[in-house]
């Protein structure tokens, strides 16, 4: 069956989920998967081209804090403050990305630069404690009536589920658009050999900046959506190294090179976190981080294509049991 038909069936199935009478807890899990699935997709949109960022928490933090602060202090609707936050993130991405790409800071060095960016944003949030609440975090001022379209606040989870679903689908559409665009060709070429790419006319710096800015803007939207849903944010949950590494881990586990890989990563990490929480509670400090680290190593060694990538490779092997390896010359 055509993948579009499967996609339509999947979306229709998801759309009726809130009507099935699931409890608040299960709906909460689904909303969390959709929000993080979108954030992870936003990271993978550039990560798949070898641009490994360890600092996407910076963009997540900007989304959450800029939108919340503008709402709390000026009463600016998230419909305006979120685009403002996205523009701030894109400017940050440009500021950091341009020198990196212009001077070919790639691989581990690029990862280190982004790692620093994530920490700069986290420390800035902590440092501006009078405005941001510092390490204690801040709450999003709720509207008295509980639900307001203008404030992007919804009293019932079902409505927020549909908002998260739309944003997540938007992320998948952008992933697909990039995948089918000539930008992908430029980025695939640049990720393999910048000299060879430039010799056939690819503007490597521009291509990388474009995808970084798209990824940053999307991640910022994810951060703002997370804040609107949780109604509480703090520097540890929306910025800094821990959340940045969680993003990387989830995408690698789910599958870096497939459209649904990051979402599968979101399901996997959520199930893992919930299992650990239910089994061990909060008694063993840092257990989740240790297990994430261990699993990350195992995934990189034994399943580098992630869960979805491995499944798809297995399926395509089944379809082509004995490929004729005739040279194409």
């Amino acid at each position: 069956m055509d993948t579009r038909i499967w996609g339509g069936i999947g979306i229709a199935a998801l759309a009726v989920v809130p009507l099935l009478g699931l409890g608040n807890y299960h709906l909460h899990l689904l909303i969390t998967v959709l929000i993080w699935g979108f954030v992870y997709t936003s990271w993978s949109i550039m990560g798949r081209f070898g641009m490994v960022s360890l600092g996407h928490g910076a963009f997540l933090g900007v989304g959450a804090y800029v939108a919340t602060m503008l709402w709390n202090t000026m009463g600016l609707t998230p419909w305006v403050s979120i685009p403002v936050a996205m523009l701030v993130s894109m400017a940050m991405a440009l500021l950091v990305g341009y020198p990196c790409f212009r001077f070919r800071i790639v691989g581990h060095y690029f990862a280190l630069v982004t790692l620093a960016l994530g920490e700069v944003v986290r420390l800035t949030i902590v440092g501006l404690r009078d405005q941001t609440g510092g390490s204690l975090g801040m709450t999003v001022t709720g509207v008295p009536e509980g639900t307001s379209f203008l404030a992007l606040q919804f009293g019932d989870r079902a409505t927020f589920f549909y908002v998260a679903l739309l944003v997540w689908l938007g992320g998948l559409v952008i992933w697909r658009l990039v995948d089918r665009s000539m930008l992908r060709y430029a980025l695939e070429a640049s990720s393999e050999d910048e000299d060879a790419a430039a010799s056939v006319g690819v503007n490597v710096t521009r291509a990388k900046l474009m995808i970084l800015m798209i990824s940053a803007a999307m991640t910022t939207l994810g951060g703002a959506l997370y804040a609107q849903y949780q109604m509480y944010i703090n520097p540890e949950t929306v910025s800094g190294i821990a959340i940045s590494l969680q993003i990387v881990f989830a995408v690698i586990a789910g599958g870096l090179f497939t459209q649904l890989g990051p979402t599968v990563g979101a399901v996997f990490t959520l199930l893992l976190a919930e299992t650990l929480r239910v089994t061990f509670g909060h008694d063993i400090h840092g257990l989740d981080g240790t297990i994430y680290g261990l699993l990350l190593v195992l995934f990189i060694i034994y399943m580098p294509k992630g869960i979805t990538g491995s499944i798809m490779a297995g399926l395509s092997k089944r379809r082509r049991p004995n490929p004729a390896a005739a040279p194409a010359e």
Partner: protein
Amino acid sequence: MLRVENLTKRFSGFVAVNRISFALEQGEILGLIGPNGSGKSTTFNMIAGLLKPSEGSIRLEGREIGGLAPIEICHSGIGRTFQIPRPFKQLTILDNVVTAAFYGQRGSVSRAKALDQAEEALTLVGLPTDPQAEVASLGAAGLKKLELARAIATQPRLLLADESLGGLDETEMNAAADMLNHIRREKNITIIWVEHIMGVLMRVVDRAIVLDHGEKIFEGLPREVARDPRVIEIYLGSEKITFDEARS
């Protein structure tokens, strides 16, 4: 078409290329030859934009291009191949060439046109236009052809071919030489062919320049190269020159 004057490249005092001058006519194939370390690759890389000249000028159709970045060189109408093929392995054979056709020309090119031009370039070099054909299916000769197809797809007026015969057996070398000649005729492209294997090259080129230790020691017709005592001296014992193959 191309005029190189007093081109010099120094690396911290070491002179790799010393005041080399030459000119190319439209549709000509120029062989740039010399043993290892003679400065031919440095000269090549200065024209291709990978190295900035220390002195001298490189003019393409009257416009100074010395010191421009590789992307600007490409958009000026100069295509290049690499000595060791550098394919984009994540892309299919066709997509490698489509990328070059799409991005390699000045001004915007539609995707459909880029696809047409890519298929034409692949057909010209004898590679499959099958959208599924993977780079991994290519051998040494196939990868060289892909380099050529990618360069041709940028619609260059000048093609820089870097040691297109390296790693090929004798049959493949002859085929590659014939292919370059065929490309020149079909597309009316001017070609600079850098090579250290002389025999096959001499069958095809219109003129040859021989470099040694960064200096131009000879410029002339292929038949004259084989008789030049300085060329014989630098190649004797290190390279088997099949002079009888040199075009008379």
